[in-house]
Structures are given as structure tokens and as C-alpha cells.
């Protein structure tokens, strides 16, 4: 395709359009002015954020809500360094984002010029791939490759560092229609012999468990997972990032497993005779003490990333391929398993150990999420921050479809939730309401984006769960460090309603459990602008069930312990 000579910046914007980009989250600076200039003449919406970290989390939230790459545009030096947390967050959770960073002019590279930094060098360890473009004529190829790499295979962040003389220079190279990457092969189907072996292992199982992770969601395998679960009559446990692959209301759904998972999901892990992981990576939050994890169960691991094979544990069988395509290969080889007895045990655990919370005392986050679930029926896009509220949200909110529960899993990035919710709302074409659930700690890390949400009039409902503590750390100090609270008291937090109003955002308040439904319903009626709800929560509430870090799943704590606990052996 021919390219009438344009400057690099115009080529970049044209490439974004060709990739279907509708919105770019950015913050300008000297080295990136040419690209901000070029975007003015395009149909792409520029969302000015208030911090570059916010821009990357917005791109991330947009990508998770849509499955399409999100784009952040920042300047060099501090602009670029401020994106590191967002890039790392996207890398840990396999989210396709493109970060375009400005750079000083090529002759000044490596000479400590103003706002120069070795951006690609700094990000090597935390990107899927990156480029430092030194010739405007490389731009069409680099842009094409970046989007292809970000969104295919196991997705991830791609950084493109663009010196100012490259974005200002003339590009005469044609736009690229395809990529030529001999070192990058996108896995599709698994070898037939492996699939046959999987079928034969599954057929022998009497107590199978499907473990569904983010990989299943990214692959779009929800139909296949549902079909597999129903065909085998096998229960499905979900990782934090896999919630919504199987509808939360499905009778075979066990909800989330792991450290703060449901009792029935974790009991199923302990008792199953076969565990089939579909796009999960055996995170330490799931396995607990590895030596004792599913010791006697057959383990089948399906992953698109070969480097996951044997990284954490050695499965009996590794299926290398795309979840959706591999399940399509596998399904015709399977039939219903004799699982009636197994399902009966699971049903009895569900009855015996339902998710619950104390009804006495002040406002509990669990009550708010339970109410939210009742009102929306799981038909909402929920974006959380990190901490206690995140775990309770994962327990009580049951998304009915993929891409409706968005959260920072692998990285556990506080400050992610609010900007990610803004990004998700830009990508939301479903008409579902978008809720941001954050804590008083995480919200204050990126609250500068209140300006962004106000200016952009994004109709998100921002729930700030204020317990005046960094609750998860406080819980660990309570349980494992003799209640010696250190650095967790969030004294001095503002009145979040007044804060919202200062930005021109409507503020509401929930103080008592009885307020929750009324206020949430009122917030749902507002569909043309943001609203912030300050929830004044019980201060010292702990998340249960809990498997202490590094402990075997069987040592799950179901109710608040009376005796003092050993310090955990797991790292974090």
C-alpha cells in the first residue's frame, strides 16, 4: 500500500486508525508534541489523563473490557518512567496494551539530554516486546508488528519508543499489511496425540475439576468451557481473572478458588482425582504449598505459552495451544463421566459452607457487594482495586459473562482500579453499568483521575470502600504479627464525598447496611455522568476463608481463628 510522504507522527496516527484504535489515553510533553499535533486531525479520541500511570491503566482497562489493544501515549523521561507500573501490571495479567513514548532526538540518545532516559532499556524485563525506532521509515512496520505481537498468542504490553526527530521526520515507506516475524509463532491447535491422551486421562476420572483461568477468557473459550463442563458434568473453579468464563450463576460454578476462594472450590481441589487447567498458570495464590497441591490428582495443563510448561509444577500432560481451538479438538472425544456422587459431595459442601459474613456491627463491604450482586444479577462491569475489597468482590459478585470482572491479579497493583474503570467505560459497548470498587488506600493512589472522569463525563459508579486502614496488610498483622499494626493506619483521608464534589463529581454516602440498596439504585439511575459513593465501612473486618500463604489448601481457615497463628512461610 502506498504512502504519500507524511511525517512520522501522521504515519503513527494513520497506523492506529488502521488497527481500529478509537481512543488514546495520553499525557503530553516536549518529546511527543508532534504526535499530539497529528492526533488533532484524526478521528481518534484523545483522553487527557492526569498522570501517565493512569493512562496505562486506562489502556489496560479498555483492553480487558474489549479484548482489543489499549493505547497510551506519553512523553520521554518521567512520562515514560511513570508508565512502568502500568506496563508491568499488563504484563503480569497478559493484557495487550501499546505504550507510545516520546524520546529525545536520535543524536542525543545516551547523552543525558533533557528528559532523556533509556526507556526501552528500563522496560526490557516487563514488556512482551519493545522497539526503539530510529528511522521514520521503520514506523509502518513497527506499528503493524506491535499490534500483532500485543494481541496474539499470550497477549502483553508492547512499548514503542519514538525519538522526536523520528516523529517529525518524513516517512516514505508503505503501510504494512502483514508481519514477517520468524521468531514469533502463534500457537493454535495442540498435537493430536496429546489431545487423545488428554481425552483418555479425562475419561478415567470420577472426580474431575476444571480450573479456568484468564487464558480461557482471552481465547474466547467460554462456549467450549460451558460445553465441556456440562458434557462431563464436571465442576468448574475459576481463578480471580477467570471469573465470568462460566456464568457465575451456573450450578457447576464453584466461584473462585485459592487463598480467599470458596470453601467448596478448595475442597474440590483437595478431593479431585483430575484437575484440568485451562489457561491458568498455577499461581501461588491458587496452589498454596506446592508439594501438597493435588498430590494424587492427574494434572492436565492447557496453555498457549510453552514457557508455562513445568514453570511451577510438572503436569502429567501439557497441551500446548489456544484454549478455544484445543477444546474444540477435545470435545468430540469425550462423553459424560460418572460424576453423580462427586457432584453430590460438592452440593453438600456448597450447603454446608456458603459464603457468609456477620450481619451484626457496622457496614460491611460484603454486604455492599452482595447487594450489588442482587441488584445487577451479575450484569455489570466491575473493576476493582487491590486488597480486601477485591477479594470480597471476587467472592460475592458473580459475573455472568467474560470481561465483566476486571482486576489486577498477578501484579496486585493498588491504584489500578479507578483508571482501569475509566478505560473500561470507554470500551464498554454493552450498555452495562460500570462500577469501580476501590479502597481508601488504592483510590488515593490515582485519584487525580477524578478530573479525567469529570471532564469526560464517564458514567461510572466509583465505590470507595473506606475502612481507614490498609485492610489486607492490617489483616495479616492482626493474624500473624500479634496485631502489631505498622504503617496501615490511613488517618487523614479526606471526606470522599466533598472531594468528589470539589471535582464536580456527584458524591453519595453509605454509612449503614440499610443505606446500601437505596444508594446503589440511585447511582444506577445516573447514566450520563460519574458518581462517587463513599462507603464508611467496618474498620477491622478480615477476609475469610483464607489459606495462609505457603500453607497447604487443606489448612484453609474458614472462620476467624481464636488461637494465635504461626507466621506464614509463603513469601507474600
Amino acid at each position, binding site marked *: 500500500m502506498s504512502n504519500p510522504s507524511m511525517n512520522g507522527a501522521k504515519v503513527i496516527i494513520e497506523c492506529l486508525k488502521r488497527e481500529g484504535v478509537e481512543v488514546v489515553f495520553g499525557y503530553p510533553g516536549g518529546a511527543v508534541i508532534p504526535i499530539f499535533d497529528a492526533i488533532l486531525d484524526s478521528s481518534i479520541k484523545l483522553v487527557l489523563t492526569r498522570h501517565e500511570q493512569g493512562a496505562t491503566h486506562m489502556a489496560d482497562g479498555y483492553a480487558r473490557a474489549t479484548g482489543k489493544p489499549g493505547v497510551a501515549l506519553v512523553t520521554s523521561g518521567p512520562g515514560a518512567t511513570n508508565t512502568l507500573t502500568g506496563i508491568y501490571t499488563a504484563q503480569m495479567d497478559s493484557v495487550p496494551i501499546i505504550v507510545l513514548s516520546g524520546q529525545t532526538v536520535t543524536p542525543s540518545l545516551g547523552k543525558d539530554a533533557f528528559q532523556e532516559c533509556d526507556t526501552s*532499556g528500563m522496560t526490557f524485563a516487563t514488556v512482551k516486546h519493545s522497539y526503539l525506532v530510529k528511522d521514520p521509515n521503520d514506523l509502518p512496520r513497527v506499528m503493524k508488528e506491535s499490534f500483532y505481537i500485543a494481541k496474539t498468542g499470550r497477549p502483553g504490553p508492547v512499548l514503542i519508543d519514538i525519538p522526536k526527530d523520528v516523529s517529525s521526520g518524513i516517512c516514505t515507506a508503505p503501510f504494512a499489511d502483514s508481519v514477517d516475524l520468524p*521468531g514469533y509463532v502463534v500457537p493454535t491447535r495442540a498435537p493430536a496425540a496429546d489431545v487423545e491422551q488428554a481425552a483418555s486421562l479425562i475419561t478415567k476420572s470420577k472426580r474431575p475439576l476444571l480450573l479456568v483461568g484468564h487464558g480461557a477468557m482471552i481465547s474466547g473459550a467460554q462456549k467450549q468451557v460451558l460445553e465441556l463442563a456440562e458434557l462431563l458434568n464436571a465442576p468448574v473453579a475459576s481463578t480471580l481473572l477467570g471469573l465470568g468464563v462460566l456464568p457465575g450463576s451456573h450450578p457447576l460454578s464453584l466461584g473462585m478458588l485459592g487463598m480467599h476462594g470458596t470453601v467448596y472450590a478448595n475442597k474440590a481441589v483437595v478431593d479431585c482425582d483430575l484437575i484440568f487447567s485451562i489457561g491458568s498458570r498455577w499461581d501461588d495464590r491458587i496452589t498454596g504449598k506446592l508439594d501438597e497441591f493435588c498430590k494424587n490428582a492427574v494434572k492436565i495443563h492447557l496453555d498457549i505459552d*510453552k514457557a508455562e510448561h*513445568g514453570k511451577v509444577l510438572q503436569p502429567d500432560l501439557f497441551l500446548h495451544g489456544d484454549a478455544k481451538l484445543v477444546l474444540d479438538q477435545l470435545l468430540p472425544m469425550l462423553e459424560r463421566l460418572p460424576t453423580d456422587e462427586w457432584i453430590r459431595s460438592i452440593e453438600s459442601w456448597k450447603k454446608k459452607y456458603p459464603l457468609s459474613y456477620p450481619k451484626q456491627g457496622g457496614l460491611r463491604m460484603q454486604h455492599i457487594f452482595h447487594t450489588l450482586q442482587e441488584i445487577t444479577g451479575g450484569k455489570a462491569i466491575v473493576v476493582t482495586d487491590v486488597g480486601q475489597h477485591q477479594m470480597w468482590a471476587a467472592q460475592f459478585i458473580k459475573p455472568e459473562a467474560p470481561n465483566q470482572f476486571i482486576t489486577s491479579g498477578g501484579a496486585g497493583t493498588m491504584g489500578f482500579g479507578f483508571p482501569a474503570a475509566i478505560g473500561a467505560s470507554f470500551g464498554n459497548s454493552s450498555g452495562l453499568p460500570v462500577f469501580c470498587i476501590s479502597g481508601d488506600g488504592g483510590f488515593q493512589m490515582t485519584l487525580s483521575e477524578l478530573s479525567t472522569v469529570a471532564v469526560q463525563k464517564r458514567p461510572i459508579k466509583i465505590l470507595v470502600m473506606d475502612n481507614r486502614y490498609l485492610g489486607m496488610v492490617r489483616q495479616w498483622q492482626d493474624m500473624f504479627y500479634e496485631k502489631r499494626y505498622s504503617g496501615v493506619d490511613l488517618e487523614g483521608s479526606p471526606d470522599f464525598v466533598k472531594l468528589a464534589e470539589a471535582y464536580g463529581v456527584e458524591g453519595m454516602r453509605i454509612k449503614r447496611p440499610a443505606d446500601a440498596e437505596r444508594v446503589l439504585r440511585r447511582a444506577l439511575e445516573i447514566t450520563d455522568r460519574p458518581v462517587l459513593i463513599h462507603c464508611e465501612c467496618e474498620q477491622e473486618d478480615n477476609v475469610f476463608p483464607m489459606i495462609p500463604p505457603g500453607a497447604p489448601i487443606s489448612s484453609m481457615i474458614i472462620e476467624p481463628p481464636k488461637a494465635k497463628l504461626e507466621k506464614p512461610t509463603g513469601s507474600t
Partner: protein
Amino acid sequence: MSHLNPAHSISLLVSNKPGVLVRIALVFSRRGYNIDSLVVSPTLDSEFSRMNIVARGNPDTLVQIIRQLEKLVDVIQAKDHTGESIVERELALFKVRTNSGNRTELLQIASHFKASSLDMSENAMVLQVTGSSEKIDAIKSLLEKLGIVEFIRTGKVIMARGDDKT
């Protein structure tokens, strides 16, 4: 600790671009692998480079490292050749202190190992020796007795036998 682990000969075919070496080195360092030697060479196709790496570490971890190397966009092929029948060679230069008393012995050692003398002065001689890593280790231990001033070795270069490709 690392010396208890066997040395692995790894061959990589990579894109000939800046930054590739850093990406590869990061995979080794993140998994606690020490690189003993590294050789980078052009290939017949100027778009690619060949890397030969000798590294020590836990063998199970190496399997992971190879998979993580293969995952890099700029790595076309990564292979551990340890235990395979391959052609492997190293080249080493030794500068040895000489005097009238040890010159004869030095030349005898050089002749035995088919080492060639590249430079000779009143007090020192530079020898070049090629061969397997074991051969270079052997001449090194003999020369140490005569007094090595400095030495450098290239690290292993390897190639598959027959018409197989490395």
C-alpha cells in the same frame, strides 16, 4: 554452588538487532544462571546472528530458560546441545613469562598441544591454542607452573555434525 552444576552449551539463532543481547541476558540472570562464555557471530544471512552460550545452573531451570528464550520475539531458535555429539572448539591466548631457563619447556608444551607462538619477546611469549575446552584446561594447568601473565579464551563455538543444522 554453581560449580556443582554441569556446564550447558546453548545455541541461539537470533535477529541481528540492538537490544537482543540484553533481552537474552535478562532471562539468564532472572533465573539465577551464570553465563560462563558468550560468542556472538554473524550468520550467512545478515538478518540473523548466532549465539553460543555456555552457562551453569540447575538443569531443570535450564529447560525453563530455553522455553523463555524461545518466547522472545527476536529469538528464532534456542537449543541446549549438552550431551549431543557436536563439533565444538575454543581458541585461547596465553601470555607466559619466559626466560632462558624455561623457554625450551614452554616450546615443548606448545608443540605437544599444537599451539602456535604469536609473539615472542625477551620476557614473555604469546601462545595460541585451539581445541576442546578440556584441551585448553589441560595446557592452562601446565602453563600455570611456568607463570601465566594473562590469558583469554573465546568460549565455545559449536556446530552440529554431518549435514544437520545446528
